[in-house]
């Protein structure tokens, strides 16, 4: 099952979900979308992240792995400034989206979050109808000129989230009435309805059963053709299945980062080796 690693494999159908083996590292020269330099995060006096630097490539899936409490979510939240909402959380360092510092005072955080969407660990649809859930983002950002356009966005987003066939007859029913997996796909549809450039996903499958998980993974695989995706996961298999690059965090440090295949087959650090072989974490 091990694939030869010398060939560039840009097409997504070679990353079939059924394969649980480590895949070819994607070495195609992709433009970098997000760069982080020396990012440190403090919760009050406690430092949770130490000088993290990483480049996140466009239209690929980057996975963050690492033991619980190592700062994966913390770093992910830095990328769309969700940390701003946490009291006494302080971020040092520089994070750029397309070369623009996202912590710049001139940058509007509302605009940033329209460009960097987020999907959370627990599905959190709004307690409104399925339609309203998806339509909300485009509506507040004024992306649709009229109802017809909005309808089109909603339908397209639900299609992209492979949820359309399941909900097309019940768009006015509450989003909270869906199953857990459907809710999570609804949250993904909601996120992609505003056409963000980057989508952050914090353990999007941890509340789901294997079948729902497989569906979401399949979806992520498709989404990467249009979106830059960063995913936090606890499942090594998941990281291997869906990501092109993997970053391993430990105790607030970014230990190492590289093409997924390399991280899983020949990690440069002993700690990475120990973690992916299940010796700790």
């Amino acid at each position, binding site marked *: 099952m091990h694939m030869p690693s010398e060939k560039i494999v840009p097409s997504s159908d070679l990353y079939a979900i059924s394969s649980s083996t480590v895949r070819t590292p994607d070495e195609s020269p992709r433009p970098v979308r997000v760069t982080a330099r020396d990012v440190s995060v403090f919760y009050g006096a406690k430092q949770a992240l130490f000088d993290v630097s990483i480049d996140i490539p466009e239209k690929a899936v980057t996975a963050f792995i690492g033991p619980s409490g190592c700062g994966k979510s913390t770093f992910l939240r830095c990328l769309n400034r969700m940390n701003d*909402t946490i009291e006494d959380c302080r971020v040092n360092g520089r994070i750029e989206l397309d070369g623009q510092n996202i912590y710049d005072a001139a940058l509007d955080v509302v605009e940033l979050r329209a460009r960097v969407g987020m999907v959370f660990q627990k599905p959190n649809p*709004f307690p409104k109808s399925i339609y309203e859930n998806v339509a*909300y983002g485009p509506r*507040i950002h004024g992306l649709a000129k009229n109802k017809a356009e909005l309808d089109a966005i909603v339908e397209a987003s639900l299609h992209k989230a492979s949820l359309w066939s399941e909900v097309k007859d019940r768009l006015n029913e509450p989003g909270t009435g869906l199953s857990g997996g459907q809710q999570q796909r609804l949250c993904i549809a909601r*996120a992609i309805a505003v056409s963000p450039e980057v989508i952050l996903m914090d353990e999007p499958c941890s509340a789901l059963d294997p079948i729902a998980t497989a569906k979401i993974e399949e979806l992520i695989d498709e989404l990467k053709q249009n979106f830059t995706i960063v995913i936090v996961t606890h499942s090594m298999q998941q990281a291997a299945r869906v990501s092109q690059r993997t970053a391993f965090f430990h105790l607030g440090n970014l230990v190492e980062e590289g093409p997924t295949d390399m991280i899983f087959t020949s990690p440069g650090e002993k700690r990475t080796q120990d973690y992916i072989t299940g010796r700790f974490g």
Partner: protein
Amino acid sequence: MAETLVPQPASDGSAERLARIRAGLSARHSRERRFRFYGIAAIAAALGFVAILFTMILYKGLPAFTQATLEVEVFFDPEVISVDPMPVQQQGQSQAEFRRAMTDWQRQATMVNWNRIVEAAVRNAAPGTEADSRQLLSIVETNARFELRDRFVADPGILGSTARVKMLASANADNWLKGNINRDLPDAQQQLAAPARELADRLYENGHIRFAFASHIFTNVDSRSAPASAGLAGAFVGSLYMMLVVIVLAVPIGVMSAVYLEEFAPKNRLTDLIEVNINNLAAVPSIVFGLLGAAVFINYFRLPLSAPLVGGLVLTLMTLPTVIIATRSALRAVPPSLRQAALGLGASKTQTVFHHVLPVTYPGILTATIIGVAQALGETAPLLLIGMNAFVAQIPGTPLDQSSALPVQIYLWQGNENRNFFEARTSAAIIVLLGLMLTLNAIAIFLRSRLERRK
């Protein structure tokens, strides 16, 4: 510590472990039974008290909703009612002149000795009564004459004819017929003279006096001179105005303060201080709010005394802390994931709060508001301090007119000297007040279930 239980493979010592668990079981179960019994006993006691309270109030108050009512043939005797014909607007007569003529005519109609008409009618219904004219009139409510006058003014053509007229019996006659007063008491202690008592009994027996539904309780205002016809309408409308003022002011101000404090305000010394003070405000005795209202709204802002607007303002002050505290705890109960979902989509702070967080709290805010308003409606003490215990003999047309309020009316009737008539009246007023509260609560439950279904 040799006896500490450590998890062991089931084979060895499992029998001993089971025995230990079982030894404790019966004690655990009986503790549970005991607790459940205490719980049921507490609820039963609470329900018992409520049941006793309601039974007492209904038992005392319900009779007040029927009242002794006289129905007699009244002859509009032209000899007694000697009034010029009603003026008709002449050609060339100005509007003002005509109105003056009309007023003169109405004054004439008022000057008629209507009591003679009443007396004749009652005497006619009970031929051969020994009651003299004062005694006879003592069983008829004093405002009967005004009713006859109004009837005549409305239709002067009635002169010389006979009409069947209903009029209330006096409070004393009502007492006597209802048995509210001991019939064996000597004459000196009776409210009615002996011939009047005999007359009342006669009229009751021959069907001229009947107990009829006392609709005037709901349509009339309070009355000192004619207690039997006293009603709640003024106080009721006054209470409604105050409720309106409280809802219009306390809900937006309270909800906005709570939203600001909970969602936007920085957490620092100042906001802590404000929070503590709001909580303290909720515990301030209501009479203090009354003093404050008298000092600020009446003395400083020169708002009128006894006005529902001022009452509403005072009650708003009282209700605000309730609404703020309830709204804040409702906001706090909203899961953070909802806020994150909205913020993560790029909603601004304000959009997050108003589109997502606040709507979830509507049922909670609604319940708190209704409870706050119901509490405010039942409040008496602060209203006494801003003059709402004044005797007001008309239904307030605007919130700036003088008025009473339901609880104050209860207080006033409770203090009325005609005890055996007003005791029932007081309970009747309590029933009306409780009815209003229950209606409010029913509305709250209805709205709440509708809001919750919409989600």
